[in-house]
């Protein structure tokens, strides 16, 4: 059942639930942030509209910097702006930033410890028709291994908007992973959001499995939990929107309750949230783990739904993984 303290949408499992591109929430957050904080500056590498920064650019032309198609240039300029004292948001597709400019992020932002916010739009196979080149599946792995970097992957448009505001308030580098795809808006204004604090969305008595997810896989996980519940399999679903720093306490607590964990993410199975949770539990509370993610392959062109199905990233796949992990635990 839904955890009341998460204050999720009343339309959660109804067909009436509204779907909004997660990136729209990002764009709206940037406009609100721009009004609140004059230090905020936005940069893009020739992807103003695709990254939904065009409304910020229209309202705050003096705080918008077009860098042209140069992700390394954009990120080093952003480093200089942050070093001076601005709060720059560098916005591009994740495959290019942080995909192409990782070393500049490592040296001029993380080692240099300046609070640049890197917004990687267009993540996972749900990028769709553009194909494998643009479907970033390795970004969490790239970003979470960097000292000083905070990694946040919001799960719907409202949460993306909150993540933007929260990222600006932290005097640290932050990577924001923002999906392009339309996704059900299952959170509300009242749903708690704090960087570093995982949110338990679904919680049943005597749970047999914990499902931990980020991004658009959170809603898929909730659909899976509802189906499992109908079959008598009780579960916990955690929205782990902050991948670094990981909410160790919440994850270990849930693992102790269930001894079986499924991690669901639109990322390679290696190096993402699944990797982070395996590292944590492996060292502190060994539990059975299944990772629902892309299995060491690239995506391809297609519709988001077709691709989620093809690459094993649906509620049904999560439910199957839950049954597998419970079976392993009980065998």
């Amino acid at each position, binding site marked *: 059942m839904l955890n009341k303290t998460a204050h999720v949408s009343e339309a959660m499992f109804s067909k009436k639930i509204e779907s909004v591109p997660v990136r729209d929430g990002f764009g709206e957050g940037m406009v609100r942030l721009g009004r609140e904080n004059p230090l905020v500056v936005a940069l893009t590498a020739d992807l103003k509209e695709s990254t939904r920064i065009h409304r910020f650019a229209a309202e705050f032309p003096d705080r918008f910097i077009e860098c042209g198609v140069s992700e*390394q240039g954009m990120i*080093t300029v952003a480093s200089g702006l942050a*070093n001076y004292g601005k709060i720059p948001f560098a916005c591009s597709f994740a495959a290019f930033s942080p995909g192409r400019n990782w070393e*500049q992020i490592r040296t*001029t932002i993380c080692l*240099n410890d300046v609070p640049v916010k890197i917004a990687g739009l267009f993540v996972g196979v749900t990028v769709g028709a553009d194909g494998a080149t643009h479907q970033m599946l390795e970004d969490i792995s790239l970003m979470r291994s960097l000292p000083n970097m905070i990694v946040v992957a919001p799960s719907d448009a409202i949460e993306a908007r909150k993540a933007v505001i929260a990222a600006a308030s932290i005097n640290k580098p932050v990577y924001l992973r923002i999906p392009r795809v339309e996704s059900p808006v299952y959170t509300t204004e009242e749903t708690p959001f704090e960087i570093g604090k995982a949110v338990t969305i679904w919680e049943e008595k005597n749970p047999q499995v914990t499902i931990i997810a980020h991004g658009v896989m959170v809603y898929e996980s909730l659909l899976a939990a509802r189906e499992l519940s109908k079959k008598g399999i009780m579960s916990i679903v955690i929205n782990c929107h902050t991948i670094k720093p990981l909410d160790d306490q919440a994850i270990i607590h849930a693992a102790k309750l269930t001894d079986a964990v499924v991690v669901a993410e639109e990322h390679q199975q290696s190096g993402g949230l699944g990797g982070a949770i395996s590292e944590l539990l492996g060292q502190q509370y060994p539990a059975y783990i299944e990772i629902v993610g892309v299995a060491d392959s690239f995506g391809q062109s297609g519709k988001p739904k077709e691709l989620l199905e093809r690459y094993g990233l649906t509620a049904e796949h999560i439910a199957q993984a839950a049954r597998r992990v419970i079976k392993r635990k009980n065998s």
Partner: protein
Amino acid sequence: MLTNMATNLPQDELRAHAQAIRIDIIKMLNQAGSGHAGGSLGMADIFTALYFRVMHHEPENPLWEDRDRLFLSNGHIVPVRYAAMAHAGYFPISALKTLRKLDSDLQGHPERVRMPALETTSGPLGSGLGQAAGYAYAARMDNRRFRVYCVTSDGEHNEGNHWEAVMFAAKYKLSHLTLFIDRNNIQIDGFTNDVMPLEPLSEKYKAFNWNVIQIDGHDFYQILSAVEQARSEYQRPTVIIAKTIPGKGVSFMENKFEWHGKVPNDEEAKRAIKELQKNA
């Protein structure tokens, strides 16, 4: 406060500073046992000019908010910056012997977090100009009056990141940004012309809409007048292409690319210091 107005040092005094800085570079590198001798010695005159004549700065108040900013892009020549800073009064000259040692603020490549007066962290090439340009852009947003200087090597012009920043600085007319190129014609694998030819370099910058000045990087008069010219340019960023001799001042190191990433042993250091003292 040191300004070009306040400290009107004659050129032979600048030359004496530069030779003293070179001697310290030799000592530091010899003690560290690794590092980059060629570029550090070659840029001693320009760093002397920057720290003793060009930049507005306060060594006793290193983060003075109106200071001119200096971004060193080719971080591997940071020994010359450390030595110049020590001579200018940022920290005791005795601290130079901690270069590349555990827990030292004088890291092998510059780290801002350990020494904020370095302005940034660098080493991987081609990224300094972008940062300097971003900083200069931010300063103009707030109508700040200080100038931003950046020092690059010629070898790092192989990097795409650098040229992205060249375009950016020209597009946004960052005329308060001045770039020095250490045109010493060497990089690790050999002469720049063999590794990856750059000429015609000044024409390239002109084509990218920069104000271009070419100088002898060991002539203080030329260094100082180039900076003055840059100050009177209000439309374009300025690049000062400074021809330098890598290893300058030590005859057995001059123009030898083998000395790019090498340091003198005890005997070589002794010879080098003797030669530098003779010509001080």
